[in-house]
């Protein structure tokens, strides 16, 4: 049961209110939000914003042709298949955001689980979990990721995986997750180690709270700030990884991805630079948005860090 004071004497200033106020005060935070907002708007309103269907090759027949220079009808020109680059850029934001958001959320969940257990349990189990985590961090992840993606892509048509829509994209997301959680687990463990000795946790323990309750409703909220910052960084790096995987030709052929656009446009860059410059620029903008958001969040959530 929640108890309330009968009278509200002071206006409550919760931690998140204060953090939002600090966040608002910084130009960099608002700038990062507006960059991300741009991408989100592109993803949500893609059918309205796009001038053509992303798989529309009518430019081939209308006299515009492949690799047409940017014009009024085709704002970013056309690519080697006669697709409108602008429309594909708009739809590509969906893939990028999906990969970034899902990978970051999954990696954060796994990281919190491992880190919380290690930090709270302590002792030998902590040691074992952390050795495991560190071993993961030493793996040259990118090369392993393309290896795993390739293997599962070969497996998918002949196994139960073939019924899943966009299976290659999901494989990419899950393999990225496998290699993205260790930093979060480490920081989460450090936070739990620090917080579990504080008075309010001891009070909860004295009151007989269950272990689950102590872990996830007492400690976790105070441990979150640096984890949120890392999650934003991981979203950016997942988007970059997906772009590189698609650039190397291991991406999902069924989705429209900026990395894949670069893959097909790069060999003919000399004649059609716009088809390569634009997708790369949008990858840059999205990653910049997430990285700056992480910076702004770390300032806003942890004011003591910068005195």
């Amino acid at each position, binding site marked *: 049961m929640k108890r309330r004071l009968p009278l509200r004497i002071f206006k409550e200033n919760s931690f998140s209110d204060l953090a939002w106020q600090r966040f608002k005060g910084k130009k960099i935070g608002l700038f990062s939000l507006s960059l991300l907002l741009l991408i989100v708007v592109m993803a949500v309103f893609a059918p309205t914003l796009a001038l053509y269907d992303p798989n529309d090759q009518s430019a081939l027949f209308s006299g515009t042709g492949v690799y047409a220079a940017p014009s009024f009808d085709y704002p970013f020109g056309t690519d080697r298949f006669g697709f409108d680059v602008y429309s594909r850029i708009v739809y590509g934001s969906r893939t990028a955001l999906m990969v970034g958001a899902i990978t970051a959320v999954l990696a954060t969940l796994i990281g919190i689980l491992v880190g919380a257990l290690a930090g709270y349990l302590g002792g030998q189990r902590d040691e074992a979990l952390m050795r495991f985590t560190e071993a993961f961090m*030493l793996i040259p992840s990118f090369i392993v990721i393309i290896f795993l993606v390739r293997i599962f892509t070969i*497996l998918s048509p002949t196994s139960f995986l073939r019924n899943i829509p966009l299976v290659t994209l999901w494989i990419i997301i899950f393999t990225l997750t496998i290699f993205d959680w260790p930093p979060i687990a480490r920081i989460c463990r450090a936070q739990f180690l620090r917080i579990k000795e504080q008075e309010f946790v001891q009070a909860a323990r004295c009151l007989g709270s269950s272990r689950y309750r102590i872990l996830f409703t007492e400690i976790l909220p105070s441990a979150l700030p640096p984890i949120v910052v890392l999650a934003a960084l991981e979203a950016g790096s997942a988007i970059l990884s997906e772009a*590189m995987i698609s650039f190397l030709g291991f991406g999902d052929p069924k989705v429209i991805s900026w990395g894949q656009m670069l893959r097909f446009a790069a060999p003919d860059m000399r004649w059609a630079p716009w088809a390569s410059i634009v997708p790369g620029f949008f990858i840059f903008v999205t990653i910049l948005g997430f990285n700056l958001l992480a910076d702004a969040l770390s300032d806003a959530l942890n004011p003591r860090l910068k005195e």
Partner: protein
Amino acid sequence: MNRILRHTIRRILFMIPLFMVITMLTFYMIDAIGDPVTMMLAEVPGVSQSQIEMVKKFFGQDLPVSVRYFKWLFNVLHLDFGYSIYKGLPVGSLLVAYGIQTMKLQVAGLAVSVLIGVYLGVKSAVNQYNKKDIAIVSSSLLGRSLPAFWLGLILILVFSYWLGIFPSHGAVSYADYIFGNRVLDELWHMTLPTLMIAFFDLATYTLLLRSSMVDVLREDFILAARASGLSRRTVIWKHAMRNAISPLVSYVGYTFGIMIASAPVTETVFSWPGLGVLFVDAITNLDYPIVMGVVFILVITVFASNLITDIIHAIVDPRIEVE
């Protein structure tokens, strides 16, 4: 020194089973998804089942996977990596030839990156909160978000297509070396890829050194050293640097260990004949002798760089206890 040696031996003993597990896992995984011979012959019209069996036998593919794994392990310990199924060449010499190219590029890139990163980091830390510092930090933040492979493409577009200064692909010219000299020609081809690799981690190095340098410069012994009449330059580059470089050393060691990981992208962008491209081609064709060879090199570099980083740490910073 004795302690370091004992630590090294213990680590190496620990690495042997790990090496077995990793290579075994890779081997079984490739085997589980299909065999390269069938995949290769699927493109040949009119091939009969008995012919496929014959080619399989020729490559030793008819044996059970565990036998093949231990055969592979035994041969690798004698530095025999077998033959590539697609290229028909000995994998050992492929690994050496392609590995040298990758090494050349990655080491040069890492060196350029560390040198510039250290310089910028120190400049930034010394002028903390000045205009210079703010410029360096904010451009590092921007640079950290720039996709390096796209930067590589832009470099090619500007410097080789528009300006025509540097070559757009390859490690060396087929004929007509520039300035008539092979070494100069190779360096000329290396310039753009090196710049791209140097860019990969430049921002991280700069920010890392800046933050540790800022901390060290606040300490009392720096003031004491300045007060005792040592020049500003000596104090910064010798006394402060020795204390501030530790995080950078471990990060550089880590990057060095996983440097092959970023090779596929760089080498694809610049059509560079290196391990990355070799690996990408090999996993596309399931050419498992090459995949296993690259995995072998990968595991060895990660282990070695870990070990070396630990040792360098112990030498650079005597405060660190080797457990």
